[in-house]
C-alpha cells in the first residue's frame, strides 16, 4: 500500500463520520480521485457510519420523570449544608423557609444519613 493510502485511510473514518476539517477533506478527496482501493474503503467507512447513527437514533430519550427530578433538585437557592445529630433542626429549617414562601433546598446530614430538604412548586407537583 502506498504511503498516501495509509494516511488517507486513517482520515477516511473521520471523513465518513463528518468530523474532518475542511483542509483535511481536500487531502482525502484529492487522493480518492486517483485511488480505486481507497474509494472502496470509503464505501465501507460510510456504511459503518450510517449503521451506527441509525442504531443510536433508535435509543429513546430519558423518561419524562427525569426532568421532574432535575427540576426538583435544582429549584431554589441552596440555603444550608449542615451536619448535626438532631432532626429538630431540619424541621425548623424547613418551616422557616416555607413561611417566606420561597422554594428552598437544603441538605442535612442527620446521624450520618444525608437528607434532602426541598419544597417543590405547585406547577412541578402537577407535572410529576
Amino acid at each position: 500500500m502506498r504511503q498516501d493510502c495509509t494516511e488517507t485511510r486513517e482520515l477516511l473514518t473521520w471523513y465518513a463520520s463528518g468530523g474532518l476539517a475542511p483542509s483535511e477533506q481536500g487531502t482525502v478527496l484529492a487522493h480518492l480521485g486517483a485511488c480505486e482501493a481507497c474509494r472502496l474503503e470509503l464505501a465501507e467507512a460510510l456504511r459503518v457510519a450510517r449503521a451506527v447513527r441509525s442504531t443510536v437514533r433508535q435509543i429513546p430519550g430519558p423518561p419524562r420523570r427525569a426532568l421532574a427530578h432535575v427540576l426538583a433538585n435544582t429549584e431554589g437557592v441552596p440555603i444550608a449544608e449542615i451536619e448535626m445529630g438532631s432532626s429538630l433542626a431540619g424541621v425548623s429549617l424547613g418551616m422557616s423557609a416555607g413561611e417566606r414562601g420561597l422554594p428552598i433546598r437544603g441538605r442535612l446530614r442527620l446521624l450520618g444519613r444525608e437528607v434532602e430538604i426541598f419544597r417543590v412548586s405547585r406547577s412541578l407537583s402537577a407535572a410529576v
Partner: protein
Amino acid sequence: MVDDQGAVADVGRGDRRAFESLYHRYADRVYRFAFTLLRNRHLAEEVVQETFIAVWKGAKGFEGRSQVSSWLFGIARNQAHALLRREARGERARELPAPLPDPEEAFARDQLASRVWEALGRLSEAHREVVFLAYYEGMSYQDIAQMLSLPEGTVKSRMHHARRALAEVLT
C-alpha cells in the same frame, strides 16, 4: 432562539426557562451517550439527572472556551464514571421507580441495529465513547482528544479499531 452559549449564560444567572430549554435540547443526546456507554437504562437515566443538576450548579463557571456540547458530554462522562464507581462499591444513590420498556427492545425489530448494538457491546467503554462522539455527534478527532484529555493518536487508533470491528458485522 438563544444559541447554546447564550442559554448556558442565562442558566448561570438562574434562568429556569433557559435551563429547561437547555434540557430539552440536550437530554436525548446525553441519554443516548450514557446508554451507549453504560448499556443500562437506569444508570443512563441517573446520568442525565446528575448531569443537568451539575449543569445548573456549574453554568456560572462555564467560560465558553469549548463548545457547550463538549462541556455537557464531559460532565455526563464524569457522572457516568462516578456512578460506576458507586455501583462497584455497592452503593446506589437511590432506587428508581417502575421499570420502563428497555431501549434494547427497540433494536429487536431491526436486525442491523441489533448486530451493531451487540458489536458495540463487545468493544470497551473507552472505544464506545469515541464511537458515539465521532459517529453520532460528528466531533473531530481533535475535539474528542481535547475533551477526553487523550493524545490524538489514541483517539484515532480507538476509532480505527472500532470501525474494523463494526464493519465485520455489516458484511
